[in-house]
Protein backbone atom coordinates (compact mmCIF):
# COMPACT_ATOMS: atom_id res chain seq x y z
CA UNK A 1 0.00 0.00 0.00
CA UNK A 2 1.40 3.33 -0.83
CA UNK A 3 -0.52 6.47 -0.24
CA UNK A 4 1.93 9.31 -0.78
CA UNK A 5 0.89 11.01 2.43
CA UNK A 6 1.43 7.97 4.65
CA UNK A 7 3.59 8.62 7.71
CA UNK A 8 7.10 7.29 7.49
CA UNK A 9 8.79 5.25 10.15
CA UNK A 10 11.58 7.29 11.70
CA UNK A 11 13.32 5.50 14.55
CA UNK A 12 15.03 7.91 16.93
CA UNK A 13 16.61 5.66 19.53
CA UNK A 14 19.99 4.30 18.34
CA UNK A 15 18.92 0.76 19.11
CA UNK A 16 15.78 1.14 17.00
CA UNK A 17 17.89 2.58 14.17
CA UNK A 18 20.18 -0.44 14.45
CA UNK A 19 17.24 -2.83 14.54
CA UNK A 20 15.65 -1.12 11.55
CA UNK A 21 18.82 -1.78 9.61
CA UNK A 22 19.16 -5.44 10.56
CA UNK A 23 15.59 -6.59 11.08
CA UNK A 24 12.98 -3.99 10.15
CA UNK A 25 10.19 -5.64 12.11
CA UNK A 26 9.11 -2.43 13.90
CA UNK A 27 8.90 -0.72 10.50
CA UNK A 28 6.80 -3.58 9.21
CA UNK A 29 4.39 -3.32 12.13
CA UNK A 30 4.33 0.48 11.85
CA UNK A 31 3.29 0.23 8.21
CA UNK A 32 0.87 -2.65 8.76
CA UNK A 33 -1.12 -1.67 11.84
CA UNK A 34 0.61 1.48 13.03
CA UNK A 35 0.72 5.15 12.17
CA UNK A 36 2.11 4.33 8.72
CA UNK A 37 -1.14 2.83 7.44
CA UNK A 38 -3.67 5.45 6.33
CA UNK A 39 -7.25 4.22 6.75
CA UNK A 40 -10.51 5.84 5.60
CA UNK A 41 -11.76 8.09 8.35
CA UNK A 42 -15.38 7.04 8.04
CA UNK A 43 -15.22 3.37 9.02
CA UNK A 44 -18.19 2.40 11.18
CA UNK A 45 -18.36 -0.24 13.89
CA UNK A 46 -18.86 -2.98 11.29
CA UNK A 47 -15.17 -2.53 10.51
CA UNK A 48 -14.20 -3.61 14.04
CA UNK A 49 -14.92 -7.24 13.35
CA UNK A 50 -11.80 -8.01 11.33
CA UNK A 51 -9.57 -7.18 14.27
CA UNK A 52 -11.93 -9.07 16.56
CA UNK A 53 -11.70 -12.14 14.36
CA UNK A 54 -7.93 -11.99 14.60
CA UNK A 55 -8.23 -11.70 18.36
CA UNK A 56 -10.51 -14.74 18.47
CA UNK A 57 -7.96 -16.79 16.56
CA UNK A 58 -5.25 -15.86 19.04
CA UNK A 59 -7.60 -16.63 21.93
CA UNK A 60 -8.30 -20.06 20.48
CA UNK A 61 -4.63 -20.79 19.84
CA UNK A 62 -3.56 -19.76 23.36
CA UNK A 63 -6.34 -21.63 25.18
CA UNK A 64 -6.04 -24.55 22.77
CA UNK A 65 -2.34 -25.01 23.33
CA UNK A 66 -2.74 -25.12 27.11
CA UNK A 67 -5.70 -27.51 26.85
CA UNK A 68 -3.52 -29.75 24.67
CA UNK A 69 -1.19 -30.05 27.65
CA UNK A 70 -3.91 -31.98 29.50
CA UNK A 71 -6.06 -33.60 26.84
CA UNK A 72 -5.54 -37.25 25.86
CA UNK A 73 -6.51 -38.24 22.30
CA UNK A 74 -7.46 -41.82 22.98
CA UNK A 75 -11.02 -43.01 22.56
CA UNK A 76 -10.84 -44.82 25.91
CA UNK A 77 -9.95 -41.77 27.98
CA UNK A 78 -10.60 -38.69 25.83
CA UNK A 79 -13.96 -37.97 27.51
CA UNK A 80 -12.52 -38.47 31.00
CA UNK A 81 -9.49 -36.33 30.19
CA UNK A 82 -11.82 -33.44 29.37
CA UNK A 83 -13.58 -33.96 32.70
CA UNK A 84 -10.15 -34.13 34.34
CA UNK A 85 -9.51 -30.68 32.88
CA UNK A 86 -12.87 -29.46 34.18
CA UNK A 87 -12.36 -30.80 37.70
CA UNK A 88 -8.71 -31.25 38.60
CA UNK A 89 -6.54 -29.01 36.44
CA UNK A 90 -5.91 -25.56 37.91
CA UNK A 91 -8.31 -23.18 36.14
CA UNK A 92 -9.02 -26.03 33.72
CA UNK A 93 -12.75 -25.27 33.74
CA UNK A 94 -11.98 -21.67 32.78
CA UNK A 95 -9.66 -22.65 29.93
CA UNK A 96 -12.01 -25.22 28.52
CA UNK A 97 -15.07 -22.98 28.66
CA UNK A 98 -13.00 -20.16 27.15
CA UNK A 99 -12.06 -22.42 24.25
CA UNK A 100 -15.51 -23.91 23.68
CA UNK A 101 -17.25 -20.53 23.79
CA UNK A 102 -14.34 -18.98 21.93
CA UNK A 103 -15.26 -21.10 18.92
CA UNK A 104 -18.79 -19.72 18.97
CA UNK A 105 -17.51 -16.18 19.44
CA UNK A 106 -15.09 -16.63 16.54
CA UNK A 107 -17.86 -17.72 14.21
CA UNK A 108 -20.24 -15.00 15.36
CA UNK A 109 -17.58 -12.37 14.70
CA UNK A 110 -16.63 -13.86 11.34
CA UNK A 111 -20.25 -14.06 10.22
CA UNK A 112 -20.67 -10.35 10.91
CA UNK A 113 -17.39 -9.72 9.09
CA UNK A 114 -18.62 -11.68 6.05
CA UNK A 115 -22.05 -10.05 5.98
CA UNK A 116 -20.33 -6.65 6.29
CA UNK A 117 -18.60 -7.66 3.08
CA UNK A 118 -21.90 -8.63 1.45
CA UNK A 119 -23.55 -5.34 2.30
CA UNK A 120 -20.69 -3.00 1.47
CA UNK A 121 -19.49 -4.90 -1.61
CA UNK A 122 -16.09 -5.43 -0.03
CA UNK A 123 -15.49 -8.33 -2.43
CA UNK A 124 -15.39 -6.08 -5.48
CA UNK A 125 -12.23 -5.23 -7.40
CA UNK A 126 -9.62 -4.19 -6.50
CA UNK A 127 -10.18 -6.23 -3.33
CA UNK A 128 -11.26 -9.57 -4.83
CA UNK A 129 -8.06 -11.33 -3.68
CA UNK A 130 -8.77 -10.33 -0.07
CA UNK A 131 -12.22 -11.81 -0.44
CA UNK A 132 -10.98 -15.07 -1.98
CA UNK A 133 -8.49 -15.53 0.83
CA UNK A 134 -11.22 -14.76 3.34
CA UNK A 135 -13.54 -17.44 1.97
CA UNK A 136 -10.64 -19.91 2.11
CA UNK A 137 -10.03 -18.94 5.74
CA UNK A 138 -13.70 -19.54 6.48
CA UNK A 139 -13.52 -23.04 4.97
CA UNK A 140 -10.45 -23.83 7.07
CA UNK A 141 -12.26 -22.52 10.15
CA UNK A 142 -15.16 -24.85 9.50
CA UNK A 143 -12.84 -27.84 9.18
CA UNK A 144 -10.97 -26.88 12.34
CA UNK A 145 -14.13 -26.31 14.36
CA UNK A 146 -15.62 -29.59 13.22
CA UNK A 147 -12.54 -31.58 14.18
CA UNK A 148 -12.28 -29.76 17.50
CA UNK A 149 -15.85 -30.70 18.33
CA UNK A 150 -14.97 -34.37 17.85
CA UNK A 151 -12.19 -34.29 20.44
CA UNK A 152 -14.27 -34.50 23.69
CA UNK A 153 -15.59 -37.80 22.33
CA UNK A 154 -19.12 -37.26 23.56
CA UNK A 155 -22.18 -38.54 21.74
CA UNK A 156 -22.42 -35.50 19.46
CA UNK A 157 -18.69 -35.65 18.81
CA UNK A 158 -18.87 -39.23 17.72
CA UNK A 159 -22.01 -39.00 15.65
CA UNK A 160 -20.94 -35.68 14.18
CA UNK A 161 -17.75 -37.34 12.99
CA UNK A 162 -19.77 -40.23 11.62
CA UNK A 163 -22.25 -38.04 9.75
CA UNK A 164 -19.91 -35.36 8.41
CA UNK A 165 -17.31 -37.81 7.14
CA UNK A 166 -20.27 -39.72 5.71
CA UNK A 167 -20.84 -36.75 3.39
CA UNK A 168 -17.85 -37.86 1.38
CA UNK A 169 -19.36 -41.30 0.80
CA UNK A 170 -21.91 -39.56 -1.44
CA UNK A 171 -19.25 -38.98 -4.08
CA UNK A 172 -19.77 -41.49 -6.91
CA UNK A 173 -17.29 -44.35 -7.36
CA UNK A 174 -14.55 -43.22 -4.93
CA UNK A 175 -16.85 -42.11 -2.12
CA UNK A 176 -16.83 -45.19 0.07
CA UNK A 177 -13.09 -45.65 -0.20
CA UNK A 178 -12.57 -41.98 0.58
CA UNK A 179 -14.82 -42.25 3.62
CA UNK A 180 -12.86 -45.17 5.05
CA UNK A 181 -9.59 -43.42 4.29
CA UNK A 182 -10.71 -40.25 6.08
CA UNK A 183 -11.68 -42.20 9.19
CA UNK A 184 -8.85 -44.73 9.13
CA UNK A 185 -11.51 -47.30 9.95
CA UNK A 186 -15.09 -48.21 9.19
CA UNK A 187 -16.49 -45.92 11.84
CA UNK A 188 -14.87 -43.21 13.97
CA UNK A 189 -12.10 -45.01 15.85
CA UNK A 190 -8.91 -44.17 17.68
CA UNK A 191 -7.14 -43.45 14.41
CA UNK A 192 -9.85 -40.91 13.56
CA UNK A 193 -9.58 -39.19 16.91
CA UNK A 194 -5.80 -38.99 16.67
CA UNK A 195 -5.71 -37.55 13.17
CA UNK A 196 -8.43 -35.05 14.01
CA UNK A 197 -6.40 -33.98 17.02
CA UNK A 198 -3.25 -33.56 14.94
CA UNK A 199 -5.11 -31.57 12.29
CA UNK A 200 -7.05 -29.55 14.85
CA UNK A 201 -3.70 -28.46 16.26
CA UNK A 202 -2.17 -27.77 12.86
CA UNK A 203 -4.95 -25.96 11.00
CA UNK A 204 -5.15 -22.88 13.26
CA UNK A 205 -1.57 -22.10 12.32
CA UNK A 206 -2.45 -22.52 8.65
CA UNK A 207 -5.31 -20.10 9.28
CA UNK A 208 -2.87 -17.72 10.92
CA UNK A 209 -0.71 -17.83 7.80
CA UNK A 210 -3.75 -17.24 5.60
CA UNK A 211 -4.73 -14.28 7.73
CA UNK A 212 -1.32 -12.75 7.16
CA UNK A 213 -1.90 -13.11 3.42
CA UNK A 214 -5.44 -11.70 3.86
CA UNK A 215 -4.03 -8.60 5.57
CA UNK A 216 -1.14 -8.31 3.15
CA UNK A 217 -3.50 -8.24 0.20
CA UNK A 218 -5.65 -5.73 2.11
CA UNK A 219 -2.70 -3.36 2.31
CA UNK A 220 -2.30 -3.24 -1.47
CA UNK A 221 -5.52 -1.27 -2.19
CA UNK A 222 -6.07 -0.19 1.44
CA UNK A 223 -9.25 -0.65 3.49
CA UNK A 224 -12.65 -0.16 1.91
CA UNK A 225 -15.18 2.06 3.65
CA UNK A 226 -18.93 2.48 4.10
CA UNK A 227 -19.34 4.80 1.10
CA UNK A 228 -17.47 2.45 -1.21
CA UNK A 229 -15.78 5.53 -2.73
CA UNK A 230 -12.04 5.04 -3.00
CA UNK A 231 -9.66 7.23 -0.99
CA UNK A 232 -8.77 10.33 -3.00
CA UNK A 233 -6.71 12.56 -0.74
CA UNK A 234 -5.13 12.83 2.65
CA UNK A 235 -8.23 14.36 4.20
CA UNK A 236 -10.05 11.08 3.46
CA UNK A 237 -7.83 9.10 5.79
CA UNK A 238 -6.46 8.96 9.31
CA UNK A 239 -3.45 6.94 10.45
CA UNK A 240 -4.43 3.49 11.77
CA UNK A 241 -2.64 4.30 15.01
CA UNK A 242 -3.86 5.94 17.19
CA UNK A 243 -7.27 6.38 15.55
CA UNK A 244 -8.26 2.83 14.84
CA UNK A 245 -6.19 1.22 17.56
CA UNK A 246 -8.27 3.29 19.98
CA UNK A 247 -11.51 2.37 18.29
CA UNK A 248 -10.57 -1.30 18.09
CA UNK A 249 -9.61 -1.23 21.76
CA UNK A 250 -13.09 -0.05 22.63
CA UNK A 251 -14.61 -2.63 20.29
CA UNK A 252 -12.53 -5.36 21.89
CA UNK A 253 -13.75 -4.30 25.33
CA UNK A 254 -17.38 -4.54 24.23
CA UNK A 255 -16.75 -7.92 22.65
CA UNK A 256 -15.04 -9.25 25.77
CA UNK A 257 -17.91 -8.18 28.01
CA UNK A 258 -20.41 -10.12 25.91
CA UNK A 259 -18.07 -13.09 25.51
CA UNK A 260 -17.30 -13.29 29.23
CA UNK A 261 -20.96 -13.05 30.16
CA UNK A 262 -21.57 -16.08 27.96
CA UNK A 263 -18.51 -17.95 29.17
CA UNK A 264 -19.04 -17.42 32.88
CA UNK A 265 -22.81 -17.45 33.14
CA UNK A 266 -24.10 -19.62 30.30
CA UNK A 267 -21.10 -21.67 29.24
CA UNK A 268 -23.14 -24.59 27.97
CA UNK A 269 -25.99 -22.62 26.42
CA UNK A 270 -24.60 -22.98 22.90
CA UNK A 271 -23.50 -26.58 23.33
CA UNK A 272 -25.67 -29.66 23.13
CA UNK A 273 -26.42 -31.68 26.30
CA UNK A 274 -25.74 -34.94 24.48
CA UNK A 275 -22.06 -34.11 24.28
CA UNK A 276 -21.86 -34.67 28.03
CA UNK A 277 -22.73 -38.31 27.36
CA UNK A 278 -19.66 -40.39 26.49
CA UNK A 279 -19.54 -41.61 22.89
CA UNK A 280 -21.51 -44.78 22.35
CA UNK A 281 -20.97 -46.35 18.92
CA UNK A 282 -24.04 -48.55 19.43
CA UNK A 283 -26.62 -45.83 19.94
CA UNK A 284 -27.31 -42.66 17.95
CA UNK A 285 -28.86 -39.72 19.83
CA UNK A 286 -32.48 -38.97 18.97
CA UNK A 287 -31.77 -35.60 17.33
CA UNK A 288 -28.31 -35.04 16.08
CA UNK A 289 -27.40 -31.48 15.22
CA UNK A 290 -24.07 -29.77 14.68
CA UNK A 291 -23.01 -26.65 16.54
CA UNK A 292 -25.12 -23.57 15.81
CA UNK A 293 -22.65 -22.05 13.37
CA UNK A 294 -23.16 -24.94 10.96
CA UNK A 295 -26.95 -24.92 11.12
CA UNK A 296 -27.67 -22.97 7.89
CA UNK A 297 -25.42 -25.29 5.89
CA UNK A 298 -26.80 -28.35 7.65
CA UNK A 299 -30.32 -27.22 6.69
CA UNK A 300 -29.24 -27.00 3.04
CA UNK A 301 -27.76 -30.50 3.28
CA UNK A 302 -31.00 -31.93 4.62
CA UNK A 303 -33.25 -29.98 2.25
CA UNK A 304 -32.64 -32.38 -0.64
CA UNK A 305 -35.00 -35.25 0.08
CA UNK A 306 -35.70 -36.49 -3.46
CA UNK A 307 -33.48 -37.83 -6.23
CA UNK A 308 -33.30 -35.26 -9.01
CA UNK A 309 -33.22 -36.90 -12.46
CA UNK A 310 -30.27 -39.27 -12.19
CA UNK A 311 -28.69 -37.61 -9.14
CA UNK A 312 -29.30 -39.25 -5.75
CA UNK A 313 -30.71 -36.96 -3.05
CA UNK A 314 -27.70 -37.66 -0.84
CA UNK A 315 -25.27 -36.45 -3.51
CA UNK A 316 -27.47 -33.42 -4.25
CA UNK A 317 -27.42 -32.43 -0.60
CA UNK A 318 -23.66 -32.71 -0.32
CA UNK A 319 -23.16 -30.89 -3.62
CA UNK A 320 -25.47 -28.09 -2.54
CA UNK A 321 -23.94 -27.74 0.89
CA UNK A 322 -20.44 -27.32 -0.48
CA UNK A 323 -21.72 -25.11 -3.30
CA UNK A 324 -23.46 -22.84 -0.82
CA UNK A 325 -20.03 -21.68 0.36
CA UNK A 326 -18.09 -22.16 -2.86
CA UNK A 327 -20.49 -19.74 -4.54
CA UNK A 328 -18.94 -16.98 -2.41
CA UNK A 329 -15.71 -17.43 -4.35
CA UNK A 330 -17.50 -16.18 -7.48
CA UNK A 331 -19.15 -13.19 -5.84
CA UNK A 332 -16.74 -10.59 -7.32
CA UNK A 333 -17.76 -11.73 -10.80
CA UNK A 334 -21.46 -12.27 -10.11
CA UNK A 335 -22.16 -8.81 -8.77
CA UNK A 336 -20.98 -6.44 -11.48
CA UNK A 337 -22.45 -3.20 -10.18
CA UNK A 338 -19.88 -0.39 -10.33
CA UNK A 339 -21.18 0.87 -7.00
CA UNK A 340 -19.88 -0.98 -3.94
CA UNK A 341 -21.80 0.13 -0.93
CA UNK A 342 -25.33 -1.00 -0.15
CA UNK A 343 -25.96 2.57 1.06
CA UNK A 344 -26.22 3.70 -2.56
CA UNK A 345 -27.83 0.55 -3.98
CA UNK A 346 -31.57 0.60 -3.15
CA UNK A 347 -32.38 -2.78 -4.67
CA UNK A 348 -29.29 -4.64 -3.53
CA UNK A 349 -29.91 -3.33 -0.02
CA UNK A 350 -33.38 -4.87 0.09
CA UNK A 351 -32.18 -8.22 -1.17
CA UNK A 352 -29.35 -8.13 1.35
CA UNK A 353 -31.80 -8.00 4.22
CA UNK A 354 -33.86 -10.77 2.64
CA UNK A 355 -30.68 -12.83 2.56
CA UNK A 356 -30.01 -12.13 6.23
CA UNK A 357 -33.53 -13.24 7.14
CA UNK A 358 -33.19 -16.25 4.86
CA UNK A 359 -29.94 -17.42 6.47
CA UNK A 360 -31.43 -16.98 9.96
CA UNK A 361 -34.42 -19.03 8.84
CA UNK A 362 -32.13 -21.71 7.42
CA UNK A 363 -30.24 -21.74 10.70
CA UNK A 364 -33.42 -22.19 12.67
CA UNK A 365 -34.46 -25.10 10.44
CA UNK A 366 -30.98 -26.63 10.65
CA UNK A 367 -31.15 -26.65 14.44
CA UNK A 368 -34.61 -28.22 14.47
CA UNK A 369 -35.34 -31.93 14.08
CA UNK A 370 -35.56 -33.31 10.53
CA UNK A 371 -39.34 -33.36 10.40
CA UNK A 372 -42.11 -31.31 8.87
CA UNK A 373 -42.66 -28.42 8.64
CA UNK A 374 -38.96 -27.61 9.14
CA UNK A 375 -37.85 -29.54 6.08
CA UNK A 376 -40.31 -27.79 3.76
CA UNK A 377 -39.39 -24.38 5.17
CA UNK A 378 -35.70 -25.12 4.73
CA UNK A 379 -36.34 -26.17 1.13
CA UNK A 380 -37.91 -22.83 0.29
CA UNK A 381 -35.24 -20.94 2.21
CA UNK A 382 -32.51 -22.86 0.39
CA UNK A 383 -34.13 -21.99 -2.95
CA UNK A 384 -33.82 -18.33 -2.09
CA UNK A 385 -30.23 -18.78 -0.89
CA UNK A 386 -29.07 -20.10 -4.26
CA UNK A 387 -31.28 -17.80 -6.28
CA UNK A 388 -29.95 -14.82 -4.34
CA UNK A 389 -26.31 -15.41 -5.17
CA UNK A 390 -26.59 -17.03 -8.57
CA UNK A 391 -29.53 -15.21 -10.16
CA UNK A 392 -30.65 -12.17 -8.16
CA UNK A 393 -27.25 -10.55 -7.63
CA UNK A 394 -26.22 -10.63 -11.30
CA UNK A 395 -29.61 -9.33 -12.43
CA UNK A 396 -29.82 -6.64 -9.76
CA UNK A 397 -26.37 -5.40 -10.66
CA UNK A 398 -27.53 -4.94 -14.27
CA UNK A 399 -30.92 -3.34 -13.78
CA UNK A 400 -30.45 -1.34 -10.59
CA UNK A 401 -30.20 2.46 -10.72
CA UNK A 402 -27.77 3.43 -7.94
CA UNK A 403 -28.26 6.55 -5.86
CA UNK A 404 -25.72 9.38 -6.41
CA UNK A 405 -22.37 8.80 -4.72
CA UNK A 406 -20.52 11.46 -2.72
CA UNK A 407 -17.49 12.89 -4.45
CA UNK A 408 -15.21 11.64 -1.69
CA UNK A 409 -15.08 10.24 1.80
CA UNK A 410 -14.32 13.73 3.07
CA UNK A 411 -17.46 15.06 1.44
CA UNK A 412 -19.58 12.30 2.90
CA UNK A 413 -18.25 13.09 6.37
CA UNK A 414 -18.06 16.87 6.31
CA UNK A 415 -20.74 17.62 3.76
CA UNK A 416 -18.23 19.36 1.52
CA UNK A 417 -14.83 18.69 0.02
CA UNK A 418 -12.83 21.60 -1.34
CA UNK A 419 -11.29 19.30 -3.89
CA UNK A 420 -14.71 18.48 -5.26
CA UNK A 421 -15.13 22.14 -6.22
CA UNK A 422 -11.74 22.09 -7.90
CA UNK A 423 -12.67 18.97 -9.79
CA UNK A 424 -15.92 20.59 -10.84
CA UNK A 425 -18.01 17.77 -9.49
CA UNK A 426 -21.50 18.66 -8.25
CA UNK A 427 -21.82 18.36 -4.48
CA UNK A 428 -24.45 15.85 -3.54
CA UNK A 429 -27.23 16.75 -1.18
Amino acid at each position, binding site marked *: MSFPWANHYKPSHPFMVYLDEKLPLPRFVYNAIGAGYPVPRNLNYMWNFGVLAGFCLLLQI*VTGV*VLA*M*HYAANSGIAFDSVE*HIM*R*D*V*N*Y*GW*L*LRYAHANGASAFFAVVYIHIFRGFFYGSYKPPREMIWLLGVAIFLLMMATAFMGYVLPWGQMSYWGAQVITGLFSAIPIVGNGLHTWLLGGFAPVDATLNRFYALHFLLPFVILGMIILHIWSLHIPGSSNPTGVEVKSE*SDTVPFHPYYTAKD*GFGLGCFLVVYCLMMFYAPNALGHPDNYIPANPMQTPAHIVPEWYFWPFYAILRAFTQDFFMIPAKLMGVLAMFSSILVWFFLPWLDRSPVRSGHYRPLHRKFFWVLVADVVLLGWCGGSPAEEPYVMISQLAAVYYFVHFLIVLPIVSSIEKPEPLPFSITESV*LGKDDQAALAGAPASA
Partner: protein
Amino acid sequence: MADDAVIDAPPHDADEIGGARRRDFINVAAVSAAGVGALAVLLPLISQMSPSADVLADSTTEVDLSGIQAGQGIVAVYRSQPLFVRRLMPREIAEAEAVPISTLRDPETLEQRTKSGKTEWLITMGVCTHLGCVPQGIVSTQNRGEFGGYFCPCHGSQYDTAARIRKGPAPKNLVVPDYVFKTDTAIKVG
Protein backbone atom coordinates in the same frame (compact mmCIF):
# COMPACT_ATOMS: atom_id res chain seq x y z
CA MET B 1 -18.50 12.27 16.44
CA ALA B 2 -17.53 15.83 17.23
CA ASP B 3 -20.49 18.05 16.57
CA ASP B 4 -18.62 21.31 16.17
CA ALA B 5 -17.64 22.64 12.79
CA VAL B 6 -13.96 22.97 13.61
CA ILE B 7 -12.35 20.07 11.86
CA ASP B 8 -8.90 18.60 12.24
CA ALA B 9 -7.74 21.67 14.17
CA PRO B 10 -5.50 21.17 17.19
CA PRO B 11 -6.74 22.80 20.39
CA HIS B 12 -5.36 26.32 20.67
CA ASP B 13 -7.21 27.73 23.62
CA ALA B 14 -5.20 28.25 26.81
CA ASP B 15 -7.95 26.42 28.73
CA GLU B 16 -7.34 23.42 26.60
CA ILE B 17 -4.02 22.62 28.25
CA GLY B 18 -5.74 21.29 31.37
CA GLY B 19 -8.10 19.36 29.12
CA ALA B 20 -5.18 17.92 27.22
CA ARG B 21 -3.61 16.76 30.46
CA ARG B 22 -6.86 15.10 31.50
CA ARG B 23 -7.09 13.41 28.12
CA ASP B 24 -3.54 12.10 28.40
CA PHE B 25 -4.41 10.69 31.78
CA ILE B 26 -7.42 8.82 30.39
CA ASN B 27 -5.38 7.38 27.53
CA VAL B 28 -2.69 6.22 29.92
CA ALA B 29 -5.34 4.77 32.23
CA ALA B 30 -6.96 2.87 29.39
CA VAL B 31 -3.68 1.39 28.21
CA SER B 32 -2.80 0.52 31.82
CA ALA B 33 -6.12 -1.25 32.29
CA ALA B 34 -5.41 -3.29 29.19
CA GLY B 35 -2.02 -4.18 30.66
CA VAL B 36 -3.55 -5.23 33.98
CA GLY B 37 -6.06 -7.38 32.11
CA ALA B 38 -3.32 -9.04 30.08
CA LEU B 39 -1.36 -9.79 33.24
CA ALA B 40 -4.44 -11.26 34.92
CA VAL B 41 -4.89 -13.59 31.94
CA LEU B 42 -1.41 -14.97 32.58
CA LEU B 43 -2.51 -16.34 35.97
CA PRO B 44 -4.61 -19.26 34.68
CA LEU B 45 -2.23 -19.85 31.78
CA ILE B 46 0.69 -20.32 34.16
CA SER B 47 -1.21 -21.95 37.01
CA GLN B 48 -2.62 -24.69 34.80
CA MET B 49 0.84 -26.20 34.50
CA SER B 50 1.31 -26.85 38.22
CA PRO B 51 0.14 -30.21 39.62
CA SER B 52 -3.59 -30.79 39.32
CA ALA B 53 -5.87 -31.73 42.20
CA ASP B 54 -5.71 -35.46 41.53
CA VAL B 55 -1.91 -35.40 41.51
CA LEU B 56 -1.79 -33.46 44.76
CA ALA B 57 -4.33 -35.78 46.37
CA ASP B 58 -2.14 -38.73 45.47
CA SER B 59 0.79 -37.26 47.39
CA THR B 60 0.59 -39.43 50.47
CA THR B 61 1.57 -43.08 50.51
CA GLU B 62 1.10 -45.69 53.19
CA VAL B 63 3.68 -48.48 53.41
CA ASP B 64 3.22 -51.75 55.23
CA LEU B 65 6.53 -52.70 56.93
CA SER B 66 5.52 -56.11 58.20
CA GLY B 67 7.34 -58.85 56.43
CA ILE B 68 10.53 -56.90 55.80
CA GLN B 69 13.40 -58.72 57.49
CA ALA B 70 16.62 -57.10 58.61
CA GLY B 71 18.90 -56.69 55.60
CA GLN B 72 15.95 -56.50 53.19
CA GLY B 73 14.34 -53.55 51.49
CA ILE B 74 11.36 -52.75 49.32
CA VAL B 75 10.59 -50.04 46.78
CA ALA B 76 7.33 -48.21 47.33
CA VAL B 77 5.97 -45.36 45.22
CA TYR B 78 5.72 -41.86 46.59
CA ARG B 79 4.75 -38.95 44.32
CA SER B 80 5.38 -41.12 41.28
CA GLN B 81 8.95 -41.71 42.41
CA PRO B 82 10.62 -44.73 44.02
CA LEU B 83 10.72 -44.72 47.81
CA PHE B 84 13.38 -46.93 49.38
CA VAL B 85 12.27 -48.65 52.58
CA ARG B 86 15.19 -50.59 54.05
CA ARG B 87 15.53 -52.45 57.30
CA LEU B 88 19.19 -52.16 58.36
CA MET B 89 21.13 -54.99 59.92
CA PRO B 90 22.91 -54.22 63.22
CA ARG B 91 26.22 -54.40 61.34
CA GLU B 92 25.03 -51.71 58.88
CA ILE B 93 23.85 -49.50 61.72
CA ALA B 94 27.22 -49.86 63.43
CA GLU B 95 29.01 -48.98 60.17
CA ALA B 96 26.95 -45.89 59.70
CA GLU B 97 27.45 -44.72 63.25
CA ALA B 98 31.19 -45.28 63.10
CA VAL B 99 31.71 -42.67 60.38
CA PRO B 100 33.07 -39.34 61.70
CA ILE B 101 30.51 -36.70 60.79
CA SER B 102 33.15 -34.14 59.89
CA THR B 103 34.33 -36.23 56.95
CA LEU B 104 30.92 -36.19 55.26
CA ARG B 105 29.98 -34.01 52.31
CA ASP B 106 26.46 -33.55 53.72
CA PRO B 107 26.96 -34.05 57.46
CA GLU B 108 24.05 -35.90 59.09
CA THR B 109 23.96 -38.74 61.59
CA LEU B 110 21.91 -41.89 61.18
CA GLU B 111 19.94 -40.71 64.22
CA GLN B 112 18.95 -37.53 62.38
CA ARG B 113 17.94 -39.50 59.32
CA THR B 114 15.67 -41.98 61.08
CA LYS B 115 12.94 -41.79 63.71
CA SER B 116 14.08 -42.16 67.30
CA GLY B 117 13.91 -45.73 68.50
CA LYS B 118 13.43 -46.87 64.90
CA THR B 119 17.00 -46.51 63.71
CA GLU B 120 16.79 -49.76 61.80
CA TRP B 121 14.19 -48.30 59.40
CA LEU B 122 15.93 -46.24 56.74
CA ILE B 123 13.29 -44.51 54.64
CA THR B 124 14.61 -42.41 51.75
CA MET B 125 13.68 -41.36 48.28
CA GLY B 126 15.17 -43.62 45.65
CA VAL B 127 16.29 -40.64 43.65
CA CYS B 128 19.97 -39.78 43.30
CA THR B 129 20.58 -36.17 44.34
CA HIS B 130 22.93 -35.70 41.40
CA LEU B 131 20.58 -35.80 38.39
CA GLY B 132 17.68 -37.94 39.50
CA CYS B 133 18.52 -41.52 38.47
CA VAL B 134 17.40 -44.44 40.64
CA PRO B 135 20.39 -45.86 42.55
CA GLN B 136 20.94 -49.59 42.89
CA GLY B 137 21.23 -51.46 46.16
CA ILE B 138 17.76 -51.69 47.69
CA VAL B 139 17.89 -55.39 46.85
CA SER B 140 20.94 -57.07 48.30
CA THR B 141 21.81 -58.73 45.00
CA GLN B 142 22.38 -55.36 43.36
CA ASN B 143 25.63 -53.42 43.42
CA ARG B 144 25.72 -51.47 46.68
CA GLY B 145 28.99 -49.71 46.00
CA GLU B 146 32.03 -49.39 48.23
CA PHE B 147 30.06 -48.25 51.26
CA GLY B 148 27.38 -50.92 51.29
CA GLY B 149 24.49 -48.52 50.80
CA TYR B 150 23.43 -47.48 47.33
CA PHE B 151 25.27 -47.08 44.06
CA CYS B 152 24.02 -44.88 41.25
CA PRO B 153 25.03 -46.36 37.89
CA CYS B 154 24.49 -43.17 35.92
CA HIS B 155 27.45 -41.17 37.19
CA GLY B 156 28.91 -43.33 39.93
CA SER B 157 27.62 -41.71 43.11
CA GLN B 158 28.05 -43.99 46.14
CA TYR B 159 25.93 -43.85 49.28
CA ASP B 160 26.60 -45.53 52.62
CA THR B 161 24.28 -47.54 54.86
CA ALA B 162 22.64 -44.35 56.09
CA ALA B 163 22.12 -43.36 52.42
CA ARG B 164 24.65 -40.52 52.81
CA ILE B 165 26.73 -39.43 49.87
CA ARG B 166 30.30 -40.65 50.23
CA LYS B 167 31.82 -40.61 46.79
CA GLY B 168 30.91 -39.37 43.32
CA PRO B 169 29.23 -36.24 41.98
CA ALA B 170 26.01 -36.15 44.03
CA PRO B 171 25.89 -33.09 46.33
CA LYS B 172 23.47 -34.32 49.01
CA ASN B 173 22.41 -37.41 50.90
CA LEU B 174 19.37 -39.29 49.60
CA VAL B 175 16.36 -37.26 50.69
CA VAL B 176 14.39 -38.42 53.71
CA PRO B 177 10.74 -37.53 53.07
CA ASP B 178 8.29 -36.47 55.75
CA TYR B 179 6.76 -39.57 57.27
CA VAL B 180 5.28 -40.85 60.51
CA PHE B 181 4.95 -44.28 62.05
CA LYS B 182 1.23 -44.96 62.29
CA THR B 183 1.89 -48.27 64.02
CA ASP B 184 5.06 -50.24 64.59
CA THR B 185 4.65 -51.83 61.17
CA ALA B 186 3.09 -49.07 59.06
CA ILE B 187 4.28 -45.67 57.95
CA LYS B 188 2.51 -42.85 56.22
CA VAL B 189 4.68 -40.81 53.87
CA GLY B 190 3.78 -37.23 52.91
